[in-house]
């Protein structure tokens, strides 16, 4: 319980899915400490993306609770969750391709007081100088890495306490993955807690403090990131889940 009081985000026994009665996330619990980086790993279909989307308010929650900074946000609509300080960037289509870079940021700045908006946008340009040079360009014409920076910049603009990312490394070259992940480290250093879903376990475990491993809608394993990277049980789970012949005990 002490753990829960310290945590900025607590997900408790969450049940969620697209169709009523067909939960994809089935009783998942996790917590995220202030200024911590936590990664959720797991095989395809384990429910990682569904979990993070449900937390962001994009997928109906059938049971359980989501607590953000002590406030129950379980039933809030997505835009209210964003206004309460949980910023989410989806895996695909994470920028408004038909709008300019500047309009993408201006749109997100709508949550802030009018007097703060421009200053905050300029802060994001200072943080991501690549974007500042392309502010009049349609976001759809940015390169993959710049797109991801815009998506993260859009999320950070409103000063969230939690940044939730769905596969930030998807579609990026290994070099760009390193750039994006080192940025996430800087963002954490500025006091923002980060929870990310990743397929790229190597890169994610390198920056994460702790990791959760999901399987079949539940958290199957949890631990400090450095240890997990070399844990054979994790490899078994991560590389395609519990196959026939893998002793079940190995997972837990």
């Amino acid at each position, binding site marked *: 319980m002490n753990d829960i009081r310290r945590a900025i985000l607590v997900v408790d026994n969450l049940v969620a899915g697209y169709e009523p009665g067909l939960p994809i996330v089935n009783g998942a619990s996790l917590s995220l400490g202030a200024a911590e980086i936590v990664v959720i790993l797991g095989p395809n279909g384990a429910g990682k993306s569904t979990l993070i989307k449900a937390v962001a308010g994009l997928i109906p929650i059938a049971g359980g609770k989501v607590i953000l900074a002590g406030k129950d946000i379980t039933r809030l609509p997505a*835009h209210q969750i964003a206004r309460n300080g949980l910023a989410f960037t989806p895996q695909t289509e994470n920028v408004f391709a038909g709008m300019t870079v500047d309009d993408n940021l201006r*749109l997100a700045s*709508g949550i802030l007081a009018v007097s703060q908006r421009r200053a905050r946008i300029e802060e994001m340009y200072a943080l991501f100088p690549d974007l500042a040079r392309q502010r009049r360009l349609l976001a759809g014409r940015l390169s993959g890495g710049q797109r991801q920076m815009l998506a993260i910049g859009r999320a950070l603009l409103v000063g969230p306490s939690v940044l939730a990312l769905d596969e930030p490394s998807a579609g990026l070259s290994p070099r760009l993955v390193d750039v994006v992940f080192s940025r996430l480290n800087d963002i954490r250093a500025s006091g923002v807690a980060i929870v990310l879903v990743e397929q790229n376990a190597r890169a994610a475990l390198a920056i994460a403090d702790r990791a959760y491993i999901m399987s079949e809608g539940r958290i199957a394993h949890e631990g400090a990131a450095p240890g997990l990277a070399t844990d054979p049980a994790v490899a078994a789970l991560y590389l395609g889940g519990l196959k026939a012949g893998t002793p079940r005990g190995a997972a837990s």
Partner: protein
Amino acid sequence: MTLQFVADGLIAGALIGLGAIGVTLTYSILRFANFAHGEFISFGAYATLLLAGAIGAIFAGSTQSIGSLSIGWAVVAAGLIAMALTGLLALALDFLVFRRLREKGAAITTVMASFGASMALRALLEFMFTSRPTYFSRDLQIAMPIGLGIRVTPDQMALLGVTAALLIAVHLLLTRTQTGRAMRAVSENPSLARVAGIDVDRVVRTTWLLGGSLACAAGVMLGLLVQIRPYMGFDLLLPLFAAAILGGIGSVPGAVAGALIVGVSEAAAVQMVGAEWRAAVAFLLLSGILLIKPTGLFGKSE
């Protein structure tokens, strides 16, 4: 052969454009084709007619013609109030019918429901006002030559000016304001808009208010230029959809460009082929664009 059809077509196109903006916004933001949009046009015209009568009765002199126009201030004031009322009618219809169906995710049912709403509203207007045409004014207007063999009436000139102002206002709203950015965002990617803090319900309400009030403006214009009857909006439905699809669904400048093309083509057909072919033009344009370039002139492929 004169160039009169260009002037006639531009005026008709401006009117169609006002209606087509609502169609294209509803389609791109609420994701359904609203067949009741034509009735917003008719409702707006009748609401203006009633209000103008009331204003004329209360403020003597408000029915006095403005300059060489056929109408007085009563119609102008009534039109502005009716624009708000038509926006509210659209909101009410969404609250009572469309929102419930949208929540169930039943897109085709929503389109069918809009057919039903269209019929019900049209029947109601016919019941209240009979199907006999009526007019804002019975003043005769003298068309003035403006060169190149083209003649226009003072009403037509004024309406072109008002429409241009409305179109510029809508364009500025969509491109320069936070409301407009939110509308474009929801139309492009509703779930990303939500996580970016946009209240989608609020955007939906704005869309209905805007679409409804522009439809009313089109209704007043049509009432002034032709006549007011319960089927006036319904008969305009095909040109509205042709314009919206021609321009690329979801694109407001596209809807206006599409409307001008439909308007001028119709007027050209009247002059060159015969008035009985007028209605076929929108249908031909619509079929043609769907066959050749379904995303329209300004549309983006999904």
